[in-house]
């Protein structure tokens, strides 16, 4: 279900709302789905690694609640794909270097399940990379691939 839920990296769940905007108010499906997602991200916030991530990033960049909601939804989906909670993921990633590299490879495959747009895929990767970096798991960061492309 969640893989089909197009979440903008900035926290605006645009596609689903657009597709379902015409639904009757009597239909509780969308509301329940949103409530379920919000409650799932609320559950995510109890993890130490998530709290550290949010604190470290907000200390400098003061992201909006809407953006955090979007980020946490992506993290939630990544955790489901890995069948691990956030603290377990960080514990492994901070362990053996090979494990961390494997996470990054799986991350690349994971974001392709969310979107076919390479820029959006890069943005989704960056959410998880930010989670890793701010929890002390050092990972390579790169800009958008077209940073070198010249129009002339």
């Amino acid at each position, binding site marked *: 279900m969640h893989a089909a839920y197009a979440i903008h990296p900035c926290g605006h769940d645009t596609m689903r709302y657009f597709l379902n905007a015409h639904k009757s108010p009597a239909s509780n499906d969308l509301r329940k789905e949103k409530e379920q997602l919000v409650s799932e991200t609320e559950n995510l916030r109890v993890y130490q690694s998530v709290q550290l991530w949010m604190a470290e*990033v907000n200390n*400098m*960049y*003061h*992201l909006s609640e809407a953006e955090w909601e979007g980020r946490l939804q992506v993290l939630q989906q990544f955790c489901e794909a890995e069948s691990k909670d956030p603290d377990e993921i960080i514990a492994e990633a901070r362990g053996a270097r090979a494990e961390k590299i494997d996470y990054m490879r799986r991350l690349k495959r994971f974001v392709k399940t969310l979107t076919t747009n390479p*820029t959006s895929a*890069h*943005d989704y990767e*960056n*959410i998880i*990379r*930010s989670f890793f*970096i701010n929890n002390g798991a050092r990972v*390579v*960061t*790169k*800009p*958008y691939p077209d*940073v*070198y492309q*010249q129009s002339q």
Partner: protein
Amino acid sequence: MEFLEAVGKRRSVRWFKTWEQVPQEKIQRVLEVVRLTTCPGNLQPWRVVVIERDKVDPSLRDNLLACDNWQGAHTQAPVWIYFYADPKGALPETFATRTKELIGVGALPTAFGWSPQAIDSAIFEGETMPAGMPAINELLHGLPYEVSANVAYAETVGACAVATLAAVNEGLGACLHMISNPSKQEEVKRLLGVPDSFVPVWQLLIGYPAEDPDAGGVRPKLPFEQIFSYGKWGQPFPRDQRVVTQLEDEGLPQPTGEPKANRFDELKYLARMFGYPV
């Protein structure tokens, strides 16, 4: 640009307009300044390779970046100026050659005792120099190659600092940056065709800043009194606040201890623009 203005404006710029090329004329102007940089004995041991990121083979570009762990500033800067030190540029015989040149142009006065014979006897025979002359016999006679390499390195660092100010003078952003991971230095030498004997120093990244050229403001600096002594170490040089104020008026700002307002917002939007994680 006035000298103090260049020193005052200099920041290590780490966000560059990747889409804006640096005219080769400006690169040459920086190199011409480096060429005239001072160093003891006029040794000039610096050797430089310039890479224009968008004009080299993409595989060379990517290999150089990989050797440097894909550091963000390196990835974005359109021009990479690699500084190496040639140990042969600081050997005793090189010093002898360069100082004899300086005698010939009137830079080292014979009135102080300088002569080609004095140089040769001090450097190659270890003959003690008389009062009024530098003890180049102690400094250079029997100088191990490794020490020559260190001297060459130290002098090249000085050239890097001058190059940075020259770039600022051209209206460019600049950042002294490591050449590569230490474990990849030999790989970079191979990629650039640099002799094995050359000692890696720094690379200077230059380009047009994507960030505010003030880059968050003057960085934290050690207290004046901690650095400068007068008469004897530990007796602070007397610092006149009027001089500090004059310099500020002439373009040399003082550190405030805090980043500029909205600096972290700037960093957030820069990261998003280029596709880096926040």
